[in-house]
């Protein structure tokens, strides 16, 4: 099953590498969001430093929406999804593969954005391990729930507008949890970062399981 997932993920990533949408369009967009935050908060470095964790995750969520749309678009084009269903790959593997591809893309964007944030918002990290682990787990949660909701919103004419209102409320725990862990890791807020890390793990596990079970149901109807 894992080998099949890897095949699917590699396919998506290859499409991504060839089209360069992530590097040419989505990454500059993230940068723009960060600059806009700077404008909105009046170029006040102290405020930016304090709110950096929240701003960072808001930017990631907005960018994730675009990446998810991309992933669905690949499948919608040329009836690729129907052909994928004709292969003997199980729907759980397809789900894991698509999530993995999305996860890798998001992680690349996160690393990029992290350095942008360090420079522009003048942040310093006190607990690098917590930052790495929580970002990893939060991204798993975003990737799995995003893949699941991506297919729910797929195939309808209004996908671009439907996906955000379906997905963003669901991601509320990730938005809060990841912001708190980063706040703790940056030494900005007095929160128990590892407890929040646990919440992110729960979220990631719940959505991985839900996705593996319901993805097949959602694919069949197409």
């Amino acid at each position, binding site marked *: 099953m894992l080998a099949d997932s890897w095949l699917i993920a590699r396919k998506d990533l290859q499409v991504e590498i060839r089209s360069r949408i992530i590097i040419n369009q989505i990454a500059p967009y993230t940068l723009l969001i960060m600059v806009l935050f700077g404008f909105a908060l009046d170029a006040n470095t102290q405020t930016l430093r304090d709110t950096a964790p929240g701003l960072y995750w808001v930017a990631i969520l907005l960018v994730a929406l675009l990446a998810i749309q991309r992933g669905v678009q690949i499948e919608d084009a040329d009836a690729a999804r129907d052909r994928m269903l004709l292969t003997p790959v199980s729907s759980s593997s397809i789900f894991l593969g698509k999530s993995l591809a999305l996860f890798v893309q998001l992680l690349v964007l996160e690393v990029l954005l992290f350095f942008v944030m360090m420079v522009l918002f003048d942040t310093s990290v006190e607990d690098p391990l917590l930052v790495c682990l929580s970002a990893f787990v939060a991204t798993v949660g975003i990737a799995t729930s995003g893949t699941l909701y991506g297919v729910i919103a797929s195939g*309808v*004419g209004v996908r671009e507008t439907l996906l955000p209102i379906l997905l963003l409320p669901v991601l509320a*725990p990730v938005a809060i949890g990841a912001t708190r862990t980063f706040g703790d890791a940056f030494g900005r807020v007095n929160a128990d970062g590892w407890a929040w890390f646990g*919440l992110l793990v729960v979220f990631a596990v*719940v959505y991985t399981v839900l996705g593996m079970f*319901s993805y097949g149901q959602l694919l069949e109807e197409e």
Partner: protein
Amino acid sequence: MITTVGPFNATSSRSTRFLGLCLLLGIPALILFAFIFSPEDDSMEDAVRLLYIHVPVAIFSYIAFGVTAVGSICYLWKRSRWWDTTAHASAEIGVMFCGLTLVTGSIWGRPTWNTWWEWGDVRLVTTLVMFLMFIGYLALRQVPASPEARAKRAAIVGIIGTINIPIVNRSVEWWENSTLHQQSSLTDGNLENLTLFTWFLGTLVIGITYLWLLIHRFRVGWLETEEERLGYGAAIEERQAEAHGLDVGSTGIPEEGENE
């Protein structure tokens, strides 16, 4: 079963008329009890009178979302249109009740907590996220698709939304770890009889309102699918006539506007 269609009794039956009659008597009675007969609260003064609508509406918005979750599970299990229509109907009423909960709560919070909104409050933020989640659910249901595909997607979103509520609740609780909401005052045992009676009356009246709306909304939903299916069937026949027996009906998702 009704035989004549009057101006407004199209989706009504003997049971809904009875419930409607109860409401015509119950709502004025509730207003009288809430505003005149019940005493004012020691600490909240007259602001307590808002709670006679706020709390029942909140309770029934949770119940409504619960019914949606149960309907969604039963739909996936039995694949019956009855459950699908019930889940949809309940979600729509739930969203309206939830919106009213937030609005009346906000209005009540201003004189009592001296703020319209409190980010640190667990129930407030959880309710808001739930509200937004079910608005998304309703938006999904508006999307043109084949009835079966739409029902399945909506059921999955309904179930996931409900599973997500405890996670949201937990996260908000840790976030600020505080609530301005007082513990249930009903268990204190020192409420005056009239206050207690008004609480029960409010819950009863809002409960009947929910039931009455649910039955009507269910029937409207049922008729909508019937109408959609009539139009859908006609469109397919038309196309089949054009295409000389080409099987158009198996494409699953109809084109936009086809089922309007």
